């Protein structure tokens, strides 16, 4: 449970950091390698199969699939990151406050808060993620940003629950008792003592939130809720691919592989984080 701070200084940390850094660099420089303009349409080149000129073929507007894939990574990543940030910025405080148990005499006026928040997390958790995403879309309409918000909202409860469980463990630790004994107020106990000590679980929750945000936002785009379909993003490309997969399967296969790979990498990073946290105790 106390693996949080140690995590940052651990020897293998650089490898994970390097992997993430390498991925970010990859996404930043990828468009430079695009052989064509991802938006350039060429009606005569509609649905060309993969060839030397178009490595991954062309789509229904004759746009180069490889170029769209390389450009679309950034947009896809941005949507997933916005979603994950939203889920984390609401889910972490929610989970931590739900784990809070007011010490006797202090914060007693707020003692009803944690159980209310726990019920709230339970209620949100009872609604399947994609359904919650669709409710959000019903409310705010479709488009890239709404898709990001919808995917983010659907991950709030899973994040909050992970943090709640971790926080509950941290808050019964001797150092919390010690901090209270020397007169630290409850806000300080929560955010200066408990929060840094669950850094490992926060990292694991972040990876999880990112993976599911990526999968769910692409799912919403795939269902045709992503709005502006001209701009390249992998979910929108899957949507294009779905319309034409009988005659031109290459349009949808490439972005599908890209999403699978990215989730796989995130899953590997996340698995290492969790196993080490449990092992490092």
């Amino acid at each position, binding site marked *: 449970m106390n693996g949080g701070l140690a995590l940052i200084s651990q020897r293998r940390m650089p490898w994970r950091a390097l992997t993430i850094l390498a991925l970010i660099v990859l996404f930043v420089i990828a468009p430079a390698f695009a052989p064509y303009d991802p938006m350039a349409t060429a009606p005569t080149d509609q649905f060309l199969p993969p060839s030397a000129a178009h490595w991954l073929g062309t789509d229904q507007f004759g746009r180069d699939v490889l170029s769209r894939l390389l450009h679309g990574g950034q947009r896809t990543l941005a949507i997933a990151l916005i979603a994950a940030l939203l889920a984390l910025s609401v889910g972490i405080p929610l989970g931590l406050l739900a784990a809070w148990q007011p010490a006797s005499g202090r914060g007693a006026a707020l003692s009803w808060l944690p159980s209310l928040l726990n019920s709230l997390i339970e209620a949100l958790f009872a*609604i399947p993620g*994609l*359904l919650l995403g*669709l409710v959000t879309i019903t409310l705010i309409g479709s488009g890239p940003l709404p898709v990001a918000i919808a995917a983010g909202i659907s991950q709030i409860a899973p994040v909050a629950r992970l943090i709640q469980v971790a926080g509950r463990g941290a808050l019964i630790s001797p150092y919390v008792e010690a901090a209270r004994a020397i007169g630290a107020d409850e806000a300080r106990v929560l955010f200066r003592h408990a929060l840094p000590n669950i850094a490992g679980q926060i990292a694991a929750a972040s990876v999880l939130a990112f993976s599911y945000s990526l999968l769910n936002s*692409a799912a919403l785009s795939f269902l045709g809720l992503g709005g502006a379909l001209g701009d390249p993003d992998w979910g929108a490309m899957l949507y294009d691919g779905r319309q034409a*997969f009988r005659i031109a*399967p290459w349009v949808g296969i490439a972005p599908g592989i890209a999403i699978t790979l990215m989730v*796989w990498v995130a899953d590997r990073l996340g698995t290492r984080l969790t196993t080490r946290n449990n092992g490092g105790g």
Partner: protein
Amino acid sequence: MNGLARRALAAVFTLWLAATLVFFALRLLPGDGLLTQLIESGASPATIAERRAALGLDQPAAVQYARFLGSLLTGDLGSSLLTGQPIVEIVAQQVGATVELAVASLAVAVTAGIALGALAALGTGLVRSLADAVLAFVLSAPVYWTGTLAIFVFTAQLGLLPSGGAGRLSQLILPALVLGLQLSGGIGRVTQAALAETIYQPHVQTARAKGLRRATVFLQHVARPALPAIIGQIGIQAAFLLGGAVVTESIFSRPGIGRLLLDATLRQDYPVVQGIVIWAATVVIVANLLVDFTIAAVDPRLREGA
């Protein structure tokens, strides 16, 4: 048993909270937005006024909420904004296809998941790595990709199976396989973790040292303690499936709750969205409760500790 009764009561409270959340979230829609939709759908002003009155939309929010809770207690989920059809009726029409897909894909998921998880935890060498890699793949590959791929291979190229629709058994095979294999990832990982944890327990060593048969050791001392975690995972997935497999139903052009929800979302028919979400939340909460009861039946420690 006292603990389980308390759990049941908490479940009712959770359901009430979920329904309330959805009710007020969807009331954030500006009232005039509803009007525009009805006008766009070609309704006359008289029809609109009539529909609004029938739905109680001319009442203040508090009155609407009280009515909503009251009808929820009698099992009434309201009616569609666009067609006026009762939502219970609409859901009932679609639930058959969703249950069919849920049962079939869960059968695939449980079989493949437990097999892969067991191989990944108990296998050796190549078998173990292979099972682990397959689990990582099915967890990462989204249905909207594998589904399209499956239709391309088995329908477009090989011509073996129909790509969609519902009614015949052959139309169920592809969606059940695609969705089932994806869900086997979660069941597989839980099985793997649970078995890997129990296999090294001292009581397993003792059982072996006593000279018990390998099969007995495995079934009684390894598999049984791992069961609660696996049952829990299966229960959660069953519940999510009954809430509607939006993506799978769309790809394979199947009727079902998921498709219903997607259509309602696109048309902003919010009473239908609300009804389906409450249905899905009910299924999840009831399933969690059933899982708790089942686990308590399987694991005597929990019965006493409850």
